[in-house]
């Protein structure tokens, strides 16, 4: 008796489910039960990607989007380790990791026929799709440094021991080496010149790994200047009235890009492309610029003049930036790391 009732209830349930699913649009069926795995940085970037890409995609397709948060080094390790059997579909990496990942066959080459490829300024989709533009400039303590500094000001004797650098290797450190080499009349292809010049800044005040750390030391007057990447820094300045940010002119800020990669042979290539279109789309890139000061790569983004002044958002502005020979820089990574450990940090 009870068995009978149970099976009848189950049948009713099944029928109801079938009715409900039949009512949904057909597209939702296609990706129902599928999960897209996206690896990116946590915090504001994750928040905007969730809001502008993941949620609309989930609504449109019925799929689920799962974020894996961490540094880009974690993601590189993961896609290389899983090359035979990838579980991550979309990975955000930085300017120098993307070409390496493409060269090693870990990611799909950017597709010149994709609409989101064409929306990006010409020549920026190197390795993967260009996601945002930022530049390495100088954050400075306004009480110690009277006007927005030029690179050469970091070498003034009154700031000896008060310059902080980021941890190495990373885009910041490579950028500073490129600048130091140019101040010595050479470029990054002459590492002796670069390290020789940078060594004049030692002992450095500290090596920073996050903004809170460096800003606390800057507010305390322990750090006068630190080369930092625009973007977050500009957003954080609102709560630190004594800290300023300068885009130097000689040479210009070093161009740095976040890249969006589609992992090769990933489980959900179609969903990944849809996600890429949303992430690179006008809405998300506008929010990136307005909230995070990350310059858009999408030609169709229109920014107010106030926002535009603080972000790198046109090809002309990009031309004024210092561009490093990243393939060469990467090829030197291991030996430069050792030189940095010994010559810049050496105890």
């Amino acid at each position, binding site marked *: 008796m009870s068995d009978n009732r149970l099976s009848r209830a189950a049948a009713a349930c099944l029928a109801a489910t079938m009715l409900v699913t039949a009512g949904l649009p057909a597209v939702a069926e296609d990706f129902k039960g599928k999960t897209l795995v996206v690896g990116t940085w946590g915090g504001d970037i994750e928040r905007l990607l969730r809001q502008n890409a993941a949620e609309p995609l989930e609504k449109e397709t019925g799929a689920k989007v799962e974020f894996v948060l961490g540094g880009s*080094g974690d993601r*590189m390790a993961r896609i*290389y380790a899983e090359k035979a059997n990838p579980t991550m579909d979309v990975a955000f990496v930085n300017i120098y990791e993307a070409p390496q990942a493409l*060269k*090693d066959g870990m990611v799909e080459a950017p597709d010149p026929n994709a609409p989101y490829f064409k929306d990006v300024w010409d020549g920026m989709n190197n390795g993967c799709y260009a996601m945002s533009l930022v530049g390495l400039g100088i954050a400075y303590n306004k009480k110690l440094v009277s006007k927005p500094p030029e690179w050469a000001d970091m070498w003034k004797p009154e700031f000896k021991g008060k310059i902080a650098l980021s941890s190495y*290797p990373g885009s910041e450190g490579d950028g500073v080496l490129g600048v130091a080499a140019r101040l010595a009349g050479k470029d990054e292809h002459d590492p002796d010149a670069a390290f020789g010049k940078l060594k004049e800044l030692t002992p450095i005040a*500290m090596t*920073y790994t996050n903004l809170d750390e460096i800003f606390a*030391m800057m*507010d305390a007057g322990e750090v006068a200047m630190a080369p930092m990447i625009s973007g977050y820094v500009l957003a954080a300045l609102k709560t630190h009235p004594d800290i300023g940010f300068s885009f130097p002119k000689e040479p210009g800020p070093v161009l740095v890009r976040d890249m969006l990669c589609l992992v090769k042979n990933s489980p959900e290539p179609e969903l990944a492309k849809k996600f890429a279109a949303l992430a690179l789309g006008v809405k998300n890139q506008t929010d990136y610029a307005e909230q995070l000061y990350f310059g858009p790569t999408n030609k169709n983004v229109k920014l107010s003049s106030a926002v535009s002044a603080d972000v790198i958002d046109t090809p002309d502005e990009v031309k004024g930036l210092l561009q490093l020979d990243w393939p060469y820089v990467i090829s030197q990574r291991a030996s430069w790391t050792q030189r940095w450990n010994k010559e810049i940090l050496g105890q």
Partner: protein
Amino acid sequence: MPPSILLLLPALALSAVVFLAPFVWLASTSFRTQAEGSLLLADGLSFDNYVRLFADPFFLEVLLRTLAYSAITTILSLIVALPVARFIVTRAGRLKGILLALMLVPLVSGALLPSLGMLHLMGPLGVVNGAARLMGLPTVKLLGTPTGILIGLVQSFLPLMVLPLVNTLARLPTDLEQAAASLGAPAIAIWRRVILPLAMPGVVAGSVLVFCATFTSFVTPQVLGQGHIATFGTVAYQQAGQVLDWPFASALAMVALAMIGLLQAAIAIGSRLIRRQEAL
């Protein structure tokens, strides 16, 4: 095959999958190299990573520094932990459980949170230097110095010393101390000749734990050293997470493991020798 082995099989199989397999992978990766201009592992095995590690004086310096930090942290922890453990065993009474639970908190909260807390205690505007400034005293630079790192390491790993000591001290019969006292031994002599020798198993266990934890620690030296001070953990992180030279980072990890293995072996042989001597 005795049936007890069969009962163990599921647990052994699980250990093999989640512990042994990654370890074997790590060990084999340490003998691989990356092809020129690529992050992919090249074919063939070689000792290149180990040669590079031992040929570069930088890594020897890092190794010696890490060993020194481990030794100093162990000794400082022992000095701080002995009275604490003794207090918990003899005087804490009903508070014993609460004190032990409080000791455990830093262990279970991970290394990051206590280190970030210490960052704010030791910073130039932190509690220590802030108070010194208010009182017109000179400030001390703690962040980015060996002193700062050692304070953080002792704070992080103190529970690893206290817990084994509490365990051993609690099992000491109080009659022995009373007997020594009734025969006129002063407190120092009781500590030196009765309590400490009998507490040796706890001292050794705690020291091994603290030494190994310090040797392999990464977060505390990274956060409190402010990138100034390289230890084995921070260098391995730099190679794996930033340079992306996974084979070389694996070799660093293998050397750290070998050092810990050597230490354990030395202690095992040492205590066997001591026991043999006692038996004579």
